[in-house]
């Protein structure tokens, strides 16, 4: 049992490596600069969101409303900035989106702390409300002309790699920095702050958590508020990456992120999970949908392959646990 968590990350890493080499051998294009940059670029949104999902699942909850929060924050901010014809620093866009997301997340946190019902159900409700609000009340639609600062950012890159063979080049968008910042921040929170330990404690045993003196309600507010803020930022980032505001872009993404985090060794029951694992899980899932084409597999198989990976990934550790339960403990013959 001890090495189970380690083993999970190990298997995922192994799978990733295997996939890398498979793709490389088939197409020779995997370890090229441009493919790696594409991969990194595709990791930005899943990576940021998975960090928030990681925190939620460690605490023992599940949130399915964050794509709606992301889209709603993104859309409202863009509309707002267009309305005032904003031309200032682009960071303000992220701040506004983040704040909107934060508020929406805090509503989640409040309901969860107050109602004490399964988080899945509550976020199902709020997610529907946020989505419906955006589509019905705000009458969301695709906005292709973005405020100037945002469209400027979407053309800003850190560096570029050229692929001489294929004659294409890929550039790493500047917003990649956001992913790095998020990962470092979440790592720090989870491993270096009492807040983070409280999140683990909450996922481990909620009664003991209360008894120990943690303020459970405050923890819930943070967990869901933080996710909301991240979702807002991720939504804005999405707009920057695609160069347009598409308010239906992340629908259904919640299940993908949850699957990625679970794949990385986070237990759905709570209390366990690491940043490294979640990133590996996200990487694996991203690779599958991105790089299948390099294997000569048509893109429409990617969902299927993802399904197989999820089943194998969750099945391996589940089966171990099942077999463990069927055996007796070894303590009987001691005296």
């Amino acid at each position, binding site marked *: 049992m001890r090495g189970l968590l380690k083993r999970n990350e190990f298997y995922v890493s192994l799978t990733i490596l295997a996939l890398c080499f498979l793709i490389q051998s088939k197409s020779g294009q995997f370890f090229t600069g441009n493919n790696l940059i594409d991969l990194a670029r595709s990791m930005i949104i899943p990576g940021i969101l998975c960090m928030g999902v990681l925190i939620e699942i460690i605490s023992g909850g599940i949130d399915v409303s964050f794509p709606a929060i992301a889209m709603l924050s993104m859309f409202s901010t863009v509309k707002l900035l267009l309305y005032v014809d904003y031309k200032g620093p682009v960071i303000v866009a992220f701040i506004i989106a983040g704040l909107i997301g934060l508020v929406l997340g805090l509503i989640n946190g409040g309901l969860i702390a107050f109602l004490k019902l399964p988080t899945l159900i509550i976020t199902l409700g709020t997610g529907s409300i946020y989505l419906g609000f955006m589509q019905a009340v705000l009458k969301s639609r695709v906005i292709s002309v973005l405020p100037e600062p945002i469209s400027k950012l979407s053309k800003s890159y850190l560096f570029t790699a050229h692929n001489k063979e294929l004659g294409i080049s890929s550039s790493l968008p500047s917003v990649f920095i956001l992913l790095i910042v998020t990962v470092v921040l979440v790592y720090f929170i989870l491993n270096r702050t*009492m807040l983070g330990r409280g999140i683990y404690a909450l996922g481990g045993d909620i*009664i003991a958590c209360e008894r120990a003196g943690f303020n459970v309600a405050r923890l819930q507010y943070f967990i869901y508020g933080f996710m909301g803020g991240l979702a807002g930022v991720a939504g804005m980032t999405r707009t920057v990456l695609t160069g347009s505001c598409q308010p239906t872009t992340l629908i259904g993404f919640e299940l993908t992120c949850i699957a990625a985090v679970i794949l990385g060794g986070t237990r759905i029951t709570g209390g366990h999970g690491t940043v490294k694992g979640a990133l590996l899980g996200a990487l694996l899932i991203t690779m599958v949908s991105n790089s299948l084409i390099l294997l000569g597999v048509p893109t429409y198989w990617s969902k299927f392959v993802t399904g197989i990976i999820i089943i194998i990934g969750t099945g391996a550790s589940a089966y171990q646990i099942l077999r463990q339960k069927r055996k007796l403990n070894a303590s009987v*013959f001691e005296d």
Partner: protein
Amino acid sequence: MSEILKVTGISKNFGGVQALKNVNLTIHKGEIHCLAGGNGSGKSTLIKIISGVYKADSGKIEINGKEYRKLTPMDAIMEGIQVIYQDLSIFPNLSVAENIALNSELYSKRKIVNWKNIKKIAEESMNKIGISLPLKEKVENLSVADKQLIAICRALVSNAKLIIMDEPTTALTRKEIKKLFEIIKKLQQQGVSILFVSHKLDEVFEISEKFTVFRNGENVITDSTVNVDYDKFVFYMTGRKIEEDFFISSNKEEQPIFKVENLSLTNGFKDISFEIYKGEILGITGLLGSGRTELALSLFGLFPAEQGDIYLNGEKIRIRSPIDAIKNGIGYVPEDRLTEGLFLAQSTRKNIAVSNIDSMVKSNGTVDFDRIDSALEKWKNELSIIMGDKDDPISTLSGGNQQKVVLAKWLETNPKLLILNGPTVGVDVGAKFDLHNYLRGLVENYGIGIIIISDDIPEIHKNCSRILVMRKGRICSEVINTHTTEKDLFSLIVNEESFIAKEGQEEAGI
């Protein structure tokens, strides 16, 4: 003034129920005091009042000589009172070091975790009682005994002066209990007082100098443990001398109802062979870890034996699952009725029918609810089950009545052999007596074979005509109840001279 805790005249009422009535308790510095009492005696309530979780309705609380009008949990902790609950309240997913140091880190109001500090605190605490556990190991991988030690270390971190332990030995093996007692003695040497809640007399004797018994929310007695013996203790706890007669086997048959031969299961038990005849009640006992529970579960098909044979009325049978067991007429009343025997949220009606539901159908194959209702009526009368509406969730019944329903559920399946594991745990004295009588009646009137697996020595002694003692996975002794004393039985179980046995020897002038 060496009284660390003195409560006088404490009363507490919960929604119309008087949980505590004018109780007193005094604990001196460095004293090990045992608080004993059955379910509903009020001992849990008093602990919660002492630790500030509940507020007493009336009475005085003095800690270290200081009187507290309104004691808060924080006050109690500041005064050095630490409670270790039965469920231990530790975090299985966090490391040993973190569990030990967590509370103090929280109270220091630090935002950033200082891992070095945590390690230091944990090591210091473990040194105090002379143990060493791997600091980085996740607690879920450790044994219950180790978890308890961690809980004690955690209590010590905040300079505990009085540690209250709520039934700490329930899940410990004999060896682990001895280790725990060694540590408690060490704590005593360091001036820490211990309030030890337990209902096991042998423990009361072994570890405490003084004891207090509660019954129905009132003091019964406080005395030094040297002044009490077994019978007196039972009288204090129950308030009556429940003299149960010995159950004597009426066996006349040659052929056993049930027979096992050389049954073995890795990590469970080895070479178990026994028979049970019509008219007798077989008892299987032993300490935790002796294999008695594993044997019970195996006979019911939950952990099928790897080797050996099982015979029912002379016919060889295979039990690979509970379904096999039931098909062959074996029923199992489990140890933990809340998680294993009952569907708390479902109605009493459904609970009674669930094991026999496949037979309770009409000719067209649909569930025959009328038949279920008449079964419920029948068992309600036979077992004197006190219940409300049959559609109310079974969680509304008392422990004793719930256990009766579980028994009825199995009787509905017309079993040939009934295995009961700890049948009267958490059952009040009256219902316990009823249950024993009923089981005897079953054996005498219906020829059902009954095996009782229990560590409640009086229960086994009085109700089982023949008793098997297990140790380390094997059967080490077989005795007839009328030919053994309770004290001898106890010695057989623990395989050492117990305090009770010693006392017996003293009495006998040996």
